[in-house]
């Protein structure tokens, strides 16, 4: 198990390095002078040279890349002061440390994704299980039908509809807004409820259908029949035997959906005008703010890799065959 973790983490480091290199050099294929962008109109050559030096743009590209990457591990010194590890450089636009702006925005994106994840897992898996348990009945048909309708929605379509219904026309709820989770948990919850539900709806539909079909598949498994032949109660067989087996495909799909979830968060941020990391990423690439783009890319990649390792650990937990081989 330890060996497995070491192997996976080593792999993750390599992948992050590759992602960093790819983003960095792709950026430099764009024929743009970042210093000139930063300097603005009517820029004197002296100013330009100073900015170029400050941003480190006067050095060869490979050196810049190396300094950027080593900064993540060891920290770097900038005219603004020391940027301690993990240092993702300084924004061309604002002059702030990229790490700081990411950390500033991170709570919102984390709240959005985790909240959405929890909601769609509970709703999606729950209704899928219900439909499988009541297979062929009216309940099953309603659940399955609803999930097909909902899965054809998109966040940017569903978002405005929900806003229109709950905020603009009736005023039942306020427009989504970010609050601190530690200071005002109640406001935090209410403020993000609409984005959560909108984001989760699309995933819920998908997970309902998936958990229903994998459950039905599992219920036909021979070992499930054996459990019934032993006299175990139907509910016990359903939750202990069939459910356990259907977790494997669900976790697999969840692992693949993690990046979709992150991009879902980006769209959600835009739809509800929330300032999260997604917003930061889009803004930075529009203004050609290389360090911020790099930072966000690596940060996001880190999380996806981390979650994928967690998914693999979940496999081992669910299926002893994975654990022991």
């Amino acid at each position, binding site marked *: 198990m330890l060996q497995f973790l070491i192997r996976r983490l080593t792999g993750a480091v390599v992948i992050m390095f590759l992602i960093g290199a790819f983003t960095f050099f792709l950026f430099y294929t764009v024929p743009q002078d970042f210093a000139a962008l930063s300097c603005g109109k009517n820029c004197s050559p002296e100013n330009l040279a100073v900015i170029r030096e400050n941003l480190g743009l006067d050095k060869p590209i490979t050196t810049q890349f190396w300094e950027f990457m080593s900064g993540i591990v060891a920290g770097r010194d900038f005219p603004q002061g020391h940027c301690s590890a993990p240092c993702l450089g300084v924004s061309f636009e604002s002059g702030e440390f990229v790490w700081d702006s990411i950390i500033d925005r991170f709570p919102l994106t984390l709240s959005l994704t985790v909240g959405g994840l929890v909601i769609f897992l509970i709703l999606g898996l729950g209704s899928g299980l219900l439909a499988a348990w009541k297979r062929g009945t009216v309940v099953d048909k309603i659940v399955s039908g609803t999930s097909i309708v909902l899965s054809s929605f998109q966040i940017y379509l569903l978002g405005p509809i929900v806003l229109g219904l709950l905020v603009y026309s009736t005023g039942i709820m306020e427009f989504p807004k970010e609050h601190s989770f530690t200071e005002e948990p109640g406001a935090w919850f209410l403020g993000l409820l609409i984005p959560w539900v909108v984001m989760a709806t699309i995933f819920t539909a998908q997970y309902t259908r998936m958990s229903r079909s994998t459950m039905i598949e599992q219920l036909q498994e021979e070992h499930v029949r054996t459990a019934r032949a*032993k006299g175990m109660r139907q509910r016990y067989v359903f939750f202990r035997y069939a459910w356990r087996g259907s977790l494997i495909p669900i976790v697999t799909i969840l692992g693949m959906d993690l990046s979709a979830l992150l991009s879902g968060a980006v769209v959600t941020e835009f739809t509800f005008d929330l300032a999260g990391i997604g917003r930061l990423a889009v803004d930075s690439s529009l203004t050609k703010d290389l360090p911020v783009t790099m930072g966000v890319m690596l940060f996001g990649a880190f999380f996806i890799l981390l979650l994928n390792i967690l998914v693999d650990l979940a496999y081992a937990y669910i299926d002893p065959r994975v654990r022991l081989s």
Partner: protein
Amino acid sequence: MTTLTKTEGEKAPTGPDSFLSVRDLRVRFSTEDGIVKAVDGLSFDVERGKTLGIVGESGSGKSVTNLTVLGLHNPKTTTVEGEILLEGQDLVTTPEKELEKLRGNKVAMIFQDPLTALSPYYTVGRQIAEPYMKHTGASKKEARDRAIEMLTKVGIPQPKTRVDDYPHQFSGGMRQRAMIAMALVCDPDLLIADEPTTALDVTVQAQILDLLKDLQQEFGSAIIFITHDLGVISDMADDLLVMYSGRAVERGGVREVLREPRHPYTWGLLSSMPRLGGSTSQPLMPIPGSPPSLLNPPSGCPFHPRCTFKDQVSGDRCSTERPPLGEGRAAACHLTAEQKQTIFIDKIQPRLR
């Protein structure tokens, strides 16, 4: 309870010893292609402590019958008619809750492929202990000790440590032994073994068959042994039921049936099977054609489209009239007793040497 309106439904005697009696059982599934008549008017008895062998090819309804006995069919798509009497209690009308108390307790089952029939997610010990705890109310500790005891009995080496292994850590033969331990843990009166050795190698099959026979001596369970292999049946069974197309075509003591089979299908099975002691100079005598579809079974005798001897029956009785299966030692065939005997002695027996 049920009135036998159909004359073609067979009647068999309800002996005083018969522990399980199945009467005129009809099982139908509705599928997208239509109604599958998986079992059509089947009757048989199992005596306490004895082994009934059911032999038939795929689609003969032998497995379905036994899933129905335990109520393991899908109630939404399946209709079951007739009676399944276990010590006088009709299992067809018994509610699920009551059936749960019988399953694994009074009636246990062993399946064909122990790799898929055991859950990969739980230890062997837990899977053996579960029914014991449920049916006897034993504690976790007691159930675990019982599981170890059962594993010892079925010949698992180092049962105290292997009890915590998962099925995939066992070899094929060991898994089937564990399956047997699981089935026998509550000392059932009836054990249904559905092709229990088909997935195993021949030397392992021999071990498992002997183990089952020896354990039956000890536990005194009746066994319904389902297989397609007449050799296995010959080794295991006391009584034999030959099934074809959802019906019983021949019944009797296993030696009687194998020594002097009376149904053309049984003849066909025996003469199409090469044997270690048989002659190699003459070709096998296969049954022509393929088994019928259960969606649209042949009229009359279901075997008539493949039967070589139907010309010897006057008229078109074979294709119009379903031959009844008499009581006791019997074969469901329109040929007369003399015809059967002559054909067997003249045409079939020489081939079996």
